[in-house]
């Protein structure tokens, strides 16, 4: 097998009780404990791994744990590459409203240089071109951009440091369908161009099917099914996967 870029071994995570109380406490409703239960998987180089599940299934918690964004967890997370990046769902809170597109991208470059990636410094207009935006966007503020354009800028900022792994948290869910298709195509192209690996999180199995090689199905913090996308689609084993598939059919 090829080398892996990320290994997650037996990761569990708990929400403290106090936090739960202040957040979503209630005696009613369909609610899950926000816990990761013994999650194990790895991502190979050049692979797109899909992670599917409903809200509250622990997808985002897993993401934060992988990126080390202030999540406490048990188990092991081994990175075989430097500094993975992330693209978030909501393109409206993903860009600093007080800064222009150019500033954000230059800032990413600057931070990359501090990490010693001076060698192949790309230029801001060049990067914008790579994500399908023209130079005139350099001086635009986020509020002047559409959802799709913002997501392009976010993707540009994510690939600017040439990471090997990018986490995509529902990157197209907030977009119109035709824009979704464009962004998905962009992601595929960038992956080929830069040899990226993706962890692609979505609640939409159809989107996962389009872009991923393998898929993990997550329910209440547990991976209930995993395998090759086609295989999972054609022959789902777990009831939950079957329900999810039936829902998007």
């Amino acid at each position, binding site marked *: 097998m090829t080398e892996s870029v990320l290994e997650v071994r037996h990761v569990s995570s708990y929400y403290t009780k106090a936090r739960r109380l202040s957040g979503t406490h*209630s*005696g*009613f*409703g*369909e*609610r899950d404990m926000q816990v990761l239960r013994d999650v194990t998987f790895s991502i190979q180089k050049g692979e797109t791994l899909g992670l599917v599940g*409903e*809200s509250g299934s622990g997808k985002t918690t897993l993401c934060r744990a992988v990126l080390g964004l202030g999540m406490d967890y048990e188990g092991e997370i081994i990175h075989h590459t430097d500094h993975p990046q992330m693209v978030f769902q909501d393109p409206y809170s993903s860009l600093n409203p007080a800064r222009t597109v150019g500033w954000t991208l230059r800032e990413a470059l600057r931070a990359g240089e501090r990490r010693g990636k001076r060698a192949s410094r790309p230029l801001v207009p060049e990067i914008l071109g790579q994500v399908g935006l023209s130079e005139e966007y350099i001086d635009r503020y986020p509020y002047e951009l559409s959802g799709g354009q913002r997501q392009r800028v976010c993707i540009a900022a994510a690939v600017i440091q040439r990471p090997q792994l990018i986490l995509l948290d529902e990157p197209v869910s907030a977009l*119109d*369908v*035709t*824009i*979704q*298709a464009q962004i*998905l*195509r962009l*992601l*595929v*192209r960038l992956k080929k161009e830069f040899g990226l690996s993706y962890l692609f999180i979505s*609640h*939409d*199995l*159809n*989107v996962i*099917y*389009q*872009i991923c090689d393998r898929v993990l199905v997550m329910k209440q913090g547990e991976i209930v099914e995993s395998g090759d996308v086609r295989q999972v*689609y054609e022959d789902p084993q777990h009831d939950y996967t079957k*329900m*999810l598939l*039936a*829902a*998007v059919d």
Partner: protein
Amino acid sequence: MDQTAGEPAGVRSMDRHGEKEGTRQTFGRTSCGDSGDEMTDRQSQKNSGQQAPDLLKVSGLRVHFHNAAPERYAVNGVSFSLKRGDTLGIVGESGSGKTVTAMCVSGLMPRGKADEEGSILLDGREMFSCSEENLRRIRGQDVGVVFQDPMTTFDPLCRIGRQVEEALTVRGIPKMERRKRAVEAMGLAGLRDAEELYSRYPYELSGGMLQRASIAAAMITKPKLLICDEVTTALDVLIQEQILELLRNLNEDYGMTILFISHDLHVVKKICKSVLVMERGKIVESGETAEVFARPQHAYTKKLIASIPARAERCRTYD
């Protein structure tokens, strides 16, 4: 509801009939267009000759917001009709005018923010010539609306029951009966423990439950038309399924007429007998849902269908 569910789907182009029935001509012209490349319509040929009374008949609807560019119409010549007991989907992306159309039909367009032209006949009554007073009577009584985000559709400071029965409250129904009907409607909307939930606050309920409660609130007056504006968008897929199931039951068991607005072709396919596809304020294609999906005629419809993440195609292969 006096309509049998087995009737042929009732979407027809109104541009030809519209003029006969005295709609303002100027807009009859600009509406869907006769040329066929703007709008592809199978139903009009099939159904011409048949004249059952429509519950809703929109003709030559044009909306222009005052703060928009002069020639930028949010809705630009939209005509369609909807029979009792039918389910009609309006599909389009953001900015297609689908929500504005729904707002006009529900009588919720804010006053003085836009120019509206054309005609909306609801059960034979012209909405545009209604006084604000009459419009308000129509809202809640004849038309119920369910909105997108169940989390924000309720007043967070007000108990669920009070809000579910609100359409009755403002119509002077006594408290005991209100409560009875509210609990009934909530039960109908698939909420168990309706009695208990009646005195809960919105923050104590999950999104799916709130969406059920908001359907109950819209249904409580037994309106003639139920407008669902992106009701599943904010929900998880499995909950989406449940809500769609509920709406389907309301339509099949109680003959509720549903106007279903969505950007999601998938969802529309599951619930609507017929569908309108809108792009930049115009209807570009309409017909029976299955038919439109199987054989899309208009380029935009094709593009939309192609954009749906489907099993058949994968980005990797076509890029």
